[in-house]
């Protein structure tokens, strides 16, 4: 990707003009742009609307499509949310997910900052190979690792504890964060470090006083992305946790709220909605950071 931008810069082609869109007539734009966009947005958002409307529907309207329009709700209720918060272990699951996500994100960020700095700036022998290995480990999917990890977790004696998740989540967070931070560190000019070295700063001082303050956007991007990744994690949590009080939200909702053949859709959907809200709120505050970390990981 960078070569394209470079080429265009060299050729002096970069411009911000709006292209030839002004030649398109309005009816044409409606058919080619607005209509497909509306369909995309509708399809992509409908499941969330359906989730939300089900979460606040009273039970008697839920499946009675003849007398009540399924797309709307009369007399919305918080009954399902109340049920979740006071009659199930849901608050505990939320707390577990929060704790595990924060702890594993923090550990991963700390380890990644050091690793990325070492690979990009300390330039020890084999730094390039190490960087490549980090990228390759990003490609190892959890669905291959969960069985041997379950074996290890069991042997170490942390089976069915939050610690098992806090220690295993960094396996997919560290490669990602390191890769992303390497890109950020690369963009910080060498001269800053050199002048700090000349002034007698140690490597530690350079890292904490020069590099980290400049890499704050990168840290936020990596942190947000890592947090949502660990919030969304499912297969490890499903495998390593068996008792209800240690479950995370995705596992808890699926394994404890689904009982027998009668699905309590109201409770299930409000559980899904409440469990999604924290990441969605976090995301809405940091959209640009999130997008840059997602596209950054792909582009490098």
């Amino acid at each position: 990707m960078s070569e394209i931008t470079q080429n265009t810069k060299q050729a002096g082609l970069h411009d911000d003009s709006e292209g030839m869109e002004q030649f398109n007539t309005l009816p044409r734009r409606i058919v080619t742009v607005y209509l497909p966009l509306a369909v995309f947005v509708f399809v992509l958002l409908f499941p969330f609307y359906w989730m939300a409307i089900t979460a606040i529907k009273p039970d008697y309207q839920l499946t009675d499509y003849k007398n009540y329009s399924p797309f709307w709700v009369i007399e919305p209720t918080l009954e399902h949310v109340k049920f979740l918060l006071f009659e199930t272990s849901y608050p505990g699951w939320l707390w577990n997910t929060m704790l595990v996500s924060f702890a594993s994100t923090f550990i991963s960020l700390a380890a990644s900052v050091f690793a990325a700095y070492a690979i990009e700036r300390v330039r020890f022998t084999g730094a390039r190979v190490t960087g490549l290995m980090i990228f390759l480990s990003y490609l190892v999917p959890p669905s291959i690792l969960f069985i041997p990890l379950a074996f290890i977790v069991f042997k170490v004696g942390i089976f069915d504890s939050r610690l098992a998740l806090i220690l295993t989540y960094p396996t997919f967070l560290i490669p990602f964060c390191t890769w992303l931070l390497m890109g950020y560190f690369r963009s910080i000019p060498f001269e800053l470090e050199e002048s700090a070295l000349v002034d007698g700063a140690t490597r530690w001082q350079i890292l904490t006083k020069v590099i980290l303050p400049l890499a704050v956007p990168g840290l936020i991007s990596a942190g947000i992305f890592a947090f949502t990744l660990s919030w969304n994690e499912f297969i490890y949590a499903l495998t390593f946790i068996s008792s209800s009080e240690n479950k995370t939200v995705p596992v808890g909702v699926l394994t404890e709220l689904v009982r027998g053949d009668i699905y309590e859709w109201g409770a299930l959907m409000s559980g899904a909605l409440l469990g999604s809200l924290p990441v969605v709120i976090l995301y809405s505050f940091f959209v640009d950071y999130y997008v840059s970390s997602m596209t950054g990981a792909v582009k490098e």
Partner: protein
Amino acid sequence: MQARPARSFSILGWLLESRNGLGFLFMLPAAVFLLCFLTYPLGLGVWLGFTDARIGREGIFVGLENYIWLFDDPVFWLSVFNTMLYTVVASILKFALGLWLALILNQHLPFKTFFRAIILLPWVVPTVLSALAFWWIYDSQFSIISYVLMNLGLISEPINFLGDPGMARASVIAANVWRGIPFVAISLLAGLQTIPQSLNEAAALDGATSWQRFTKITLPLLTPIIAVVMTFSVLFTFTDFQLIYVLTRGGPVNATHLMATLSFQRAIPGGQLGEGAAIAVAMIPFLLAAILFSFFGLQRRKWQQGGGD
């Protein structure tokens, strides 16, 4: 300070002063984590595939027995077929629809940042939780899709989304595509934004149609990023577990069992860690092939279309 033995002082000195010592020290936390919880398990997984380990009991070496057993297991081959079908169909759909959405979003639109933000929502929300919404949408009796189609008079009875093998496959693929489109679209959009408009203008002045501009300018310039995005997309799809586990758990009659879900089912509820590990290991060659195919297959196109190396 001065009472320190000379040897440990020199190691400390090496660690803090030399390039390699400092690099080693800084790499240590990440390396310990990745070696203990990634490299070691990867090797252990391969080893477990050669044993008859069960949960809480170390197995003994049984050679290729697990693999021979799997080779004769029709369910395993069905899961291989399902995984291929799932990956190929879902990836193609994600690519086509994602590229389309990216092209739309690359236009001059009001509230562009807002649209970009809400379009990414399916990717942000935990898969299990959005899959639950799909489970409800695909309900055999009260599916909202069936309701709408019945009201429109297109069908006479509710569609059995997850009960019929063919429908179940289509349904899980649809849910996977729904979740994957935003990733492809937003990543490709980032690539599209680096293509200068002036190239399009010049081509238009030379009489190129919009389709020619798309195939001769946009696609070749976008190919490197398409290769990377689709490689990741194939990787995520191939190893998908959550969606299937929520929607069908592999049913009906194993029609939607992927290798990952089969491996989980045999290893954790079934207790046969060795056999599950063997299935997971069997995923690796297929996975490598899929990654290499999508990466180099797409990279080569770049060269064929004269995109330079």
